[in-house]
């Protein structure tokens, strides 16, 4: 798409601090927990301490009698609640059986939080313990204790909403107990491929459940009006999606619900789906008061919606000269108590990130008695790339080939078939890797490895990895109006979770032809905004950016039409220069945007207001890739992996606001490093979380990480606004593989289980020399 302005305005491509920063540094930004309407009640949920149990009896009489308690609800009080809940949001509360430790069994609304908390202690619940299935392998076996109610359909809308890449095959037959979904992607003769291979490497990769880690816990406030309308203020990644889900759960028409998206204190995928909205609404209905529910951190960790545990057995075979022959993989994705994982992308990246002529990848989503999962920034891609990139690195080392050159040789290009048969769209995977290979930290890796480290005893290494995501698409719309003072105002329903509003304003500025300062943007509630999709799947700039661009072009045309009459010129002869509509080549014939804006708002005027509308559907996705490099040192005694340097290269298509993208790349990289190094939700044999605090669930701090060097490459996305691609998800993908590759470079030891904790690394070092996994 061509840039429409005749001179460069301050818009696309400029580094602009986010306008909402002023409120954020002064404490004025309002989050849900900051809302304090008159009559506010505070909610608490009583959660099951057991992972699997029958509820024999619940006695709420003492809690109800506590002064200050306004409502106590159990499943028996909620007619909207049905067995066979397909999502966590639908399973508002356990009916007669709890299926994970932390599942709500009762809810309280009280005048004060402390009273609500006290009321929980007064609720008596008698449980009959049932056998648990905590590990997915165990849960898949015949006779394993069931998780879902018999007859529950797996919910796959998350997978579709997030990425929209369809599988060509799925297997619904011969479902074992607790298997929610199965997929299989295959091509060619895998057996023959392995038979003709000279080198075959097989590993099993394991990644535990991790939490998305946003600092603002799930928070919601609900209130009903006298006419039966429900307003929900919530921390969400998609207000229209929340509205639809709550409407479905509560059996309400969507017009009866207004969702007001508050500032989202981090979501990273976990705030796509509704979670606490239904119970807050029900408590508000029962009390006829506004009810606020804010999860505690302990509840977040024990009963949030983390990323799934993933186990992948991957076997790959190549010729002595490196020619790829065959890959076979089995993925077991442990989704906890409710289905909803993105399974297909795992198969696509395993089988078709590199050009395997034959492959067979099978995936199963398994339910266990653990908290159910949600998306986490490129869901399962860090896991998948940990496996496939580790395989490529091992193959290159086994063959004595340069690991980066080896990847480059076999990496996909535009037009290559994905495992599901669709062609790869234009992308920058190769450009990212090529850029990384030139980096001095890569070309200087031998010197680093030889430099010996602290006291000459450290083990130094360098690793890189390449991975990415196929961002989603979703229809959306935006409006833009010209104000009487000549400024512009963009309205969307798109929640800004990543600084995207400033980028959208920049797009509007450039497409209309004014400087960024002339444009304001607001995220409106579901009653006021045109439809918008989720702020997820790295698609806000790609989709809403295009809608805003279309709206700005529409507004520009309307503006020119008005000006053309006044200036007695054809609209196509007009341009916008410094806030004035000018007849091209005749600068003295001009009209300011304020003049035009005033005409459209003057009493008795017949000039229609400028209201640009952009309303778009999309069909073309734009894959987004990143390459990351880790230069590390391993302490040979303790196994501690110290990051010395880290480089992130990413194809952003077109950098709309480089400052915001840099922030995404750095933040994503550190989340990726957290998956690599420290993060793990640890469950005991009874399915209870053993580390439900941030002391024991270890997130990386500023002291744990070095500077992240960010390098953007721009391979324009054909359908992206100004060529922009999604940037949010790719940076969380490569680091686990890059660090594992660096550890092998440093120590000769390959570790296939995350996180790469000192204990795990030290044990692996002790076990050297290990069997090298080569069958040739």
């Amino acid at each position, binding site marked *: 798409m061509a840039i429409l302005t005749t001179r460069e305005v301050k818009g696309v491509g400029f580094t602009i*601090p*986010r*306008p*909402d*920063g*002023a*409120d*954020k*540094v*002064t*404490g*004025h*930004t*309002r*989050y849900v*927990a900051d809302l*304090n309407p008159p009559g506010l009640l505070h909610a608490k949920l009583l959660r099951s301490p057991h992972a699997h149990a029958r509820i024999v009896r619940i006695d709420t009489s003492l809690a109800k009698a506590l002064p200050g308690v306004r409502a106590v609800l159990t499943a028996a009080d909620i007619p909207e609640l049905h067995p066979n809940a397909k999502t966590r949001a639908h399973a508002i509360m356990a009916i007669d059986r709890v299926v994970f430790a932390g599942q709500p069994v009762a809810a309280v609304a009280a005048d004060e*939080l*402390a009273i609500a908390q*006290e009321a929980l202690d007064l609720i008596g619940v008698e449980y009959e313990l049932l056998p648990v299935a905590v590990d997915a392998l165990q849960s898949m076996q015949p006779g394993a204790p069931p998780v879902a109610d018999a007859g529950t359909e797996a919910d796959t809308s998350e997978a579709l909403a997030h990425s929209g890449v369809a599988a060509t095959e799925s297997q619904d037959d011969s479902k074992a107990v607790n298997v929610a979904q199965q997929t299989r992607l295959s091509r060619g003769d895998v057996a023959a491929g392995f038979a003709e291979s000279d080198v075959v490497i097989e590993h099993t990769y394991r990644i535990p459940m991790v939490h*998305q*880690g*946003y*600092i*603002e*816990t799930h928070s919601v406030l609900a209130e009903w009006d006298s006419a039966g309308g429900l307003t929900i203020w919530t921390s969400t990644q998609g207000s229209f999606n929340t509205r639809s889900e709550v409407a479905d759960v509560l059996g309400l028409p969507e017009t009866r619900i207004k969702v007001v998206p508050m*500032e*989202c*204190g*981090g979501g*990273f995928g976990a705030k796509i789906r509704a979670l606490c909205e239904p119970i807050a609404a029900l408590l508000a209905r029962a009390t006829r008061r506004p009810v606020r529910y804010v999860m*505690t*951190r*302990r509840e977040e960790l024990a009963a949030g919606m983390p990323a799934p545990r993933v186990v992948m057995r991957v076997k790959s075979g190549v010729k002595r000269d490196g020619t790829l022959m065959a890959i076979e993989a089995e993925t077991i994705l442990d989704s906890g108590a409710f289905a909803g994982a993105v399974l297909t992308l795992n198969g696509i990246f395993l089988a078709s990130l590199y050009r395997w002529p034959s492959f067979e990848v099978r995936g199963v989503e398994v339910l266990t008695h653990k908290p159910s999962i949600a998306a986490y920034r490129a869901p399962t891609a860090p896991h998948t790339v940990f496996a496939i990139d580790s395989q490529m690195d091992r193959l290159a080392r086994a063959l004595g080939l340069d690991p980066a050159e080896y990847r480059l040789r076999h990496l996909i290009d535009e037009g290559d078939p994905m495992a599901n048969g669709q062609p790869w769209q234009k992308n920058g995977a190769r450009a990212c890797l090529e850029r990384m290979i030139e980096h001095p930290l890569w070309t200087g890796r031998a010197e680093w490895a030889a430099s010996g480290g602290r006291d000459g005893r450290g083990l130094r290494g360098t690793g890189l990895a390449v991975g990415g995501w196929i961002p989603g698409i979703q229809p959306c719309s935006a409006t833009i109006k010209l104000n009487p003072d000549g400024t512009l105002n963009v309205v969307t329903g798109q929640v800004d*979770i*990543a*600084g995207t509003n400033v980028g959208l304003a920049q797009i509007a500025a450039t497409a209309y032809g004014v400087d960024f*300062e002339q444009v*304001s943007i607001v995220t409106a509630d579901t009653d006021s905004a045109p439809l918008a999709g989720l702020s997820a799947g790295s698609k806000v700039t790609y989709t809403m950016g295009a809608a805003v661009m279309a709206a700005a072009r529409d507004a520009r045309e309307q503006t020119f039409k008005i000006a053309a009459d006044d200036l007695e010129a054809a609209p196509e002869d007009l341009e916008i220069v410094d806030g004035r509509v000018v007849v091209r080549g005749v600068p003295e014939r001009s009209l300011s945007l304020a003049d035009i804006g005033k005409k459209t708002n003057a009493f008795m005027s017949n000039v229609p207001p400028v209201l640009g509308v952009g309303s778009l559907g999309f069909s073309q996705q734009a894959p987004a890739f990143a390459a990351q490099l880790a230069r590390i040192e391993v302490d040979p005694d303790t196994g501690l992996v110290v990051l010395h340097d880290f480089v992130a290269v990413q194809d952003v298509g077109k950098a709309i606001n480089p*400052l*915001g993208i*840099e*922030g995404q790349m*750095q*933040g*994503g*990289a*550190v*989340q990726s490093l957290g998956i690599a190094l420290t993060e793990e939700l640890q469950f005991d044999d009874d399915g209870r979380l053993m580390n439900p*605090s*941030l*002391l024991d669930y270890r*997130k990386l*701090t*500023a*002291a*744990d*990480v070095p*500077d*992240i060097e960010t390098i953007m490459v721009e391979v324009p996305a054909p359908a992206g606004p100004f060529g922009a691609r999604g940037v949010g998800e790719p940076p969380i993908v490569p680091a686990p593989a890059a660090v594992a590759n660096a550890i092998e470079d440093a120590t000769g030891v390959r570790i296939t289980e995350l996180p790469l904790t000192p204990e795990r690394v030290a044990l692996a070092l002790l076990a050297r020399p290990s069997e090298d996994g080569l069958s040739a």
Partner: protein
Amino acid sequence: MSDAATTRRKIQVTVNGRQAEGEAEPRKLLSDFIREDLGLTGTHVGCEHGVCGACTVLLDGEPVRTCLMFAVQADGHDLLTVEGLAPGPDQLHPIQEAFWERHGLQCGFCTPGFLLTIKVYLAENPDPTEREVREALSGNLCRCTGYQNIVKATLRAAEILRSEPENADKASTKTTQRD
């Protein structure tokens, strides 16, 4: 719950330079008192167990985690919250200015805790290295930024404060722009 735990106590504090008075049960946390009774919601609660640092305020000039203190412990003391950091309305403290300009924030939830931690740190260490800043901030968690622009913003704030030391307590040279 015993009466001793629920009998409300009078609490007097100086907050952001002004006298304030409230009543709270002895079990009420200082974070909740600041947010609910003083109405200063810029102090955020991220973990309720003293790890994330989002609820950090200054008590008699020292950073404290208000989720680990009871409101009654603040009785008679001086509090500074994020709302009191700027030298005046339409003005920003250099740390605030640096965080905004250097993109040291994204979702903004952890930001107030960082700002107050940094205020004390830079007063004691006006010219830190990057490594020292990283260590100093390792008690505050951020999930959006990867810390890098927080570190850069801190170094930038140190630079402004060194060049214009009066900025620490007086007006910043730049006014707040509300878009």
